């Protein structure tokens, strides 16, 4: 039975993921996102968790999940908008799974419906760890029963297609005075949203949207004071709701124009929004960072402002006799980064072989000792000092790689794996594991071979997959290992590598003596070469082992080629277990093609069926045909 605390953790994690997803253009790259996904994995690693969705809250076995903060409420509302009745974590989700889920939730409801709904989209994206159950569709009569809307709401909703009109109306009403425009805009949003019936989900969503769109119709002279008003009350639920609609790079564009107070408020909001309680300046800067090229200048300006504020704060309140110097007093928290710059400069100027080697030994020591002392972020930054925008001559690359390989010793990698799989582990440890694994793939293969724990193995497979994406050779050459589980793990690595070189090797593994290896090989083939895998999958329908057959059925079911469908049709006449046949029938019904229909009709139309199993199958076929449109 799922404990309440676990449910709270899951809800808060999902809500956190939703917040991060809305703040960053690339949420998966954010440490916070990885941390959140990690906590979901830990929760779901014990047992499947199903949560019912209410309008603004979640239920576990009819008890409200008492999650802290407003983010959970906002997330529940979002799920509610998409008609999600229940969310299930049926397996530990990967970062990608969580990101895909959030991505589908971020879609407009109508768009999601047009794509077949959240559930179908998740399946299509290969997300099986997270499941959703939709509420029954409303009847026509129900949809016509719209709650009565307040006049102010109706008036604003007229601007859904014309947000500029709303913006212009407010400017006109304020006589063009920026402060007054801001006041009116702020008041109007709060008043109108407050007047929406809580059950009128459409109106709630559209009111927020029209105000946000109108905001972007403003010129800067109106935007800045308006945003400042919302920031000034960002702990208020309504104002926060408005602010949460902005992506990080959108805030970054506006941030440089805010005055000191407004800027401070933005930072406060940013800190709260990302749960960054340690307030490290580089994380704040990154918060406002974006891949949006147009925002680069703004981000730099924001970075400078953050630094300036930190410096001023560091100088204290005393009146300084040399203001031009005190204004430059550095922030001690930046000293470490300054040191890294110095190290990078040393690498640039050092042209003596023996001294360069000494610097490399120093690098090895810094990375390894920081990891052993569990100062993962520092170790990561040392690693980045040579991997990001290298300053050393290219001919030294081999020596640098060797230094990192030395740092990636097995004991160091073991510390990283411990941390990366711990419930409260540092995200930097995971990144370090990935970063250093590139320099010691043999070590990773060795760790994979001996790893018994499911979660740790999964992490290692993901890490190794990243390595193999760059160079699959070490993994291909290790496939001949006599231990089935080593080969199985390597097959999984090759699947996640996405490299075409792996296809032939996986094809050979389809005939491996152990069924678990065959299953992984089929998955890999289906992933890397969907068309080329069809025949192997078809053949696997006759495999002696049920797991292999079911895997093949599932993989053929999601394969869109006619040949895959034909294999499924052929399977109806083969000797399979009844439940496997039933699964094939359901998949064929889902595909809905003419050939599939004919095959099912033939099965359903059989008159003289003697065995109970075949009669049951006929019944399933008839039911499936009934569901086909």
């Amino acid at each position, binding site marked *: 039975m799922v404990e309440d605390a676990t449910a709270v953790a899951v809800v808060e994690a999902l809500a956190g993921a939703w917040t991060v997803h809305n703040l960053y253009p690339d949420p998966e790259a954010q440490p916070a996102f990885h941390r959140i996904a990690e906590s979901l994995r830990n929760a779901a690693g014990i047992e499947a968790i199903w949560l019912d969705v209410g309008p603004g809250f979640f239920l576990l076995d009819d008890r409200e999940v008492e999650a802290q903060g407003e983010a959970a409420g906002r997330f529940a509302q979002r799920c509610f908008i998409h008609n999600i009745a229940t969310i299930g974590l049926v397996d530990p989700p990967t970062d990608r799974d969580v990101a895909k889920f959030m991505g589908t939730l971020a879609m407009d409801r109508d768009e999601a419906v047009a794509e077949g709904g959240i559930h179908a989209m998740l399946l299509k994206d290969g997300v099986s760890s997270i499941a959703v159950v939709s509420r029954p569709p409303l009847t026509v009569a129900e949809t016509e029963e719209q709650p009565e809307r307040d006049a102010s709401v109706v008036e604003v909703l007229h601007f859904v297609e014309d947000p500029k009109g709303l913006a212009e109306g407010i400017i006109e009403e304020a006589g063009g005075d920026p402060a007054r425009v801001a006041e009116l805009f702020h008041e109007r949003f709060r008043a109108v949203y407050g007047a929406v019936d809580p059950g009128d989900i459409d109106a709630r969503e559209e009111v927020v949207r029209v105000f946000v769109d109108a905001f972007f119709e403003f010129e800067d002279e109106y935007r800045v004071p308006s945003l400042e008003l919302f920031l000034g009350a960002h702990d208020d639920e309504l104002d926060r709701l408005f602010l949460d609609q902005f992506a990080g790079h959108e805030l970054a564009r506006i941030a440089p124009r805010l005055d000191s107070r407004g800027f401070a408020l933005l930072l406060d909001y940013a800190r709260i929004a990302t749960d960054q309680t340690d307030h490290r300046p580089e994380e704040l800067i990154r918060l406002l960072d974006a891949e949006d090229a147009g925002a680069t200048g703004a981000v730099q300006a924001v970075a400078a402002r953050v630094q300036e504020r930190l410096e001023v704060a560091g100088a*204290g309140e005393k009146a*300084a006799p*040399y203001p031009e110097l005190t204004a430059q007093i550095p922030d001690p928290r930046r000293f470490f980064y300054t040191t890294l710059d110095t190290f990078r400069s040393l690498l640039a100027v050092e042209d003596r072989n023996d001294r360069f080697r000494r610097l490399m030994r*120093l690098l090895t020591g810094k990375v390894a000792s920081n990891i052993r002392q569990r100062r993962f972020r520092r170790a990561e930054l040392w690693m980045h000092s040579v991997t990001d925008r290298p300053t050393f001559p290219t001919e030294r690359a081999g020596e640098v790689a060797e230094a990192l390989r030395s740092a990636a010793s097995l004991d160091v990698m073991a510390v990283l794996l411990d941390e990366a799989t711990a419930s409260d582990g540092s995200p930097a440890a995971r990144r370090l594991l990935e970063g250093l694994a590139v320099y010691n793939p043999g070590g990773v293969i060795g760790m994979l071979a001996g790893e018994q724990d499911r979660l740790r193995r999964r992490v290692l497979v993901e890490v190794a997959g990243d390595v193999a994406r760059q160079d699959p050779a070490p993994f291909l050459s290790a496939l001949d290992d006599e231990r089935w589980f080593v080969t199985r793990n390597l097959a999984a690595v090759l699947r996640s590598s996405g490299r075409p070189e792996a296809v032939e090797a996986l094809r050979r593994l389809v005939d491996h003596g152990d069924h678990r290896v065959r299953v992984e090989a089929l998955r890999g083939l289906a992933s890397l070469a969907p068309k080329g895998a069809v025949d192997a999958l078809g053949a696997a329908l006759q495999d002696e082992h049920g797991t292999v057959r079911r895997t093949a059925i599932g993989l053929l079911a999601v394969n869109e080629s006619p040949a895959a469908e034909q294999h499924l049709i052929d399977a109806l006449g083969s000797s399979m277990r009844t439940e496997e046949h039933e699964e094939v029938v359901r998949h064929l019904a889902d595909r809905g093609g003419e050939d599939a229909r004919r095959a099912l009709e033939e099965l359903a139309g059989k008159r003289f069926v003697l065995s109970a199993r075949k009669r049951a199958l006929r019944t399933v076929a008839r039911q499936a045909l009934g569901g086909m449109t």
Partner: protein
Amino acid sequence: MNSELEARAALRDLQALARQMSLYPTGHPSVGEALLHGEASLEKLASEGDGEAVITFLGDSIYLGRRLLPHASLEFSALLRTMQSRGIESITLTSPISGGDVADLGAFVAGLSGDVPAERTIRLNESPFSRSELETAKSGGLRRSYGRSLDVLRGMAASIESGDDFDLSGAAWAVEQLVEQTISQPSAALLLSTMKSHDEYTFFHSVNVCILSIALGRLISLPDDQMAPLAMGALLHDIGKVRVEPSILQFPGRLDPAQWRQIKLHPQEGAAAILAASAPYQEIAATVAFEHHARYDGAGYPAAGRRERDLHFYSRLVATSDTYDAITTRRSYRRAETPNRALHVLLNGAGSMYDPDFVRAFIEMVGVYPPGSLLTLGDGSTAMVTKPAEAAGDLPDVVLVRMADGSYPDHPVPWSLEDQEVVDQVLPEQAGVDPPALLEQAGVIVTTV
């Protein structure tokens, strides 16, 4: 009355003699030369002290007669420890000194022989002074901190020379003490920073730069928690010189390109050595060591194009202090300049070599006549500045250190520059005085522990 300068010369020669005797056989020319120097300087010390001079080694101090030798106590701390390890508490010199006794003393100090000087012109442990008769409570906290910082640098140098990584925890402790002392007695600290040593130039220079930088940091309201990191950077800024051949550092002329290339490596050598250590404040110290010869305008070395970013604040601050102390110190290739001249050099380089804001602050800190400045007055006497003028137009505090007739007062005499004309600024060697020692005598350097 013999001066501390003569005592330091005698101790330097005794130290050199012991070193040569431990390296070479008795008949070696180097030993012979060292013997001649030692005999001469010990004889001079004894004869100018009314035929007898007593040098006492007690605790961390060296005394001449009853008088504490503060500068010598720091400069010859290694010799002091050697003496103590050999059980020598005092040396009594009686003129005329015998050359054989000097050789016996050298062998005894070098640990080559247990024979005391046979002719008794040099007697060991026969001091006429009891401990209570010696100038007590002169082991000031500031000087002690200075001495500890020197010891730290000596230890580090030995580690670097032998290729070992060094432990910076001792340095952290030393700079914390120095920060505390400098902040509580800024004028005295600035005076102490006029201490020079030709033999251990780098170490004394480093501690001086450390003191000057702490004082400058204090002046510009650097937060308390940044004082120790700044001090660490300043103390270790030249540590890379340990890896430069001493013959190049002491080369008495223009360096050739190869020698110059080696000198220019010391910032990166220092930075790498500091980075290899692991201790508080290490991070920023490496940066200061790396950048202290980079110029404000981007020139200097290492070249700007190969540095990752603009010069660090601390590097610009330390570069100012570094230049001031280097110019006021005698080197093998040039004479020392007066503090006033050093300020001119800083002013000329403001905006190009040095950060102009730091130059302005530095000059305001030390005044036109920095502490330790020796001023020749209109009547021919010499006064020494003990405290810079508080404001423009004010006069600095001074003490009289040499009378108009060329004689020296027993103790520095508080003096006033009111109605006095300053006609020249002279160097300690020219005036025949040792400013830090005089100022400790004058009570300017507070002697609390």
